[in-house]
């Protein structure tokens, strides 16, 4: 047996391993980036209101930019776990049974209610969906969003989750390296853009 080696890593040899240090660095970069495209808009808007009150409509548009752009990024992050692709409802009960066997009771119930499988790991707590995963950092103050999928889209949704879960359990860092990092930000930013049924899973991952 080859514990700790994800074979899919061979397809991305150029990538730096996504370990805890990489995640902290990327989290800081995302934080700085968010400030970079928010603070200038807010500052410009405030300056307009102070210096030329007649420009208040333009200032409002500038404030809207400062609000919308971070929201779009957070939406993109939360979208990695939105259900996508064919549902294959005929095969789903069988797939759900296998996925249930891979999870403990509480995680199984949470997965059935929210569509996300909670998996504690070394890098933090994962929430695995059909086409992506969220990673809540150990301090609970940041969520990393990863786009990752199985290469056979006809699979029923629970089989897609099971594929990702087994790959994650085989090699956590390898899983994060193969996946595409889509966003990092505060949990509240991701939560408000998640489908309502998925929000309890994020709450559970932070608990």
């Amino acid at each position, binding site marked *: *047996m*080859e*514990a700790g*080696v*994800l*074979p*899919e890593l061979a*397809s*991305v040899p150029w990538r730096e391993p996504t370990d805890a240090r990489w995640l902290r660095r990327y989290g800081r970069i995302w934080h700085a980036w968010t400030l970079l495209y928010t603070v200038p808009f807010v500052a410009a808007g405030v300056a307009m209101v102070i210096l030329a009150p007649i420009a208040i409509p333009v200032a409002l548009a500038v404030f809207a930019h400062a609000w919308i752009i971070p929201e779009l990024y957070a939406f993109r992050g939360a979208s*990695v776990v939105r259900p996508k692709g064919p549902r*294959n409802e005929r*095969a*789903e*009960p*069988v*797939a*759900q*049974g*296998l996925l249930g066997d*891979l999870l*403990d009771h509480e995680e199984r119930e949470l997965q059935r209610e929210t569509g996300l499988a909670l*998996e*504690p*790991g070394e890098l933090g707590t994962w929430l695995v969906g059909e*086409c*992506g995963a969220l990673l809540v950092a150990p301090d609970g103050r940041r969520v990393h969003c*990863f*786009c*990752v*999928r*199985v*290469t*056979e889209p*006809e*699979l*029923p949704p*629970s*089989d897609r989750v*099971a*594929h*990702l879960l*087994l*790959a994650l*359990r*085989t*090699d956590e860092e390898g*899983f994060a390296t*193969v*996946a*595409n990092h889509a966003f990092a930000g505060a949990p509240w930013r991701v939560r408000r853009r998640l489908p309502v049924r998925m929000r309890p899973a994020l709450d559970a991952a932070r608990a």
Partner: protein
Amino acid sequence: MARLIRMDGTGHTTLAEWTAEDDARFQRAVVEFGDQLGLGYIGTVPEGKGKASHVRELPRDAELVVMRRPIAGG
């Protein structure tokens, strides 16, 4: 009874079953496992809470071996 299953469009398909003592059935499972590897599937052994292993050969003593498709960044 150990099982070799493949996750596919039906949910999953049981490809082979064997016991450690039944060499003939285990050998049939080994052949089936090799065929699935040839089709691009990856052998994975779930090992309880939070653990799984990638296998290139069918382990005789495993209870469950799951053949899965590769994953990729979306």
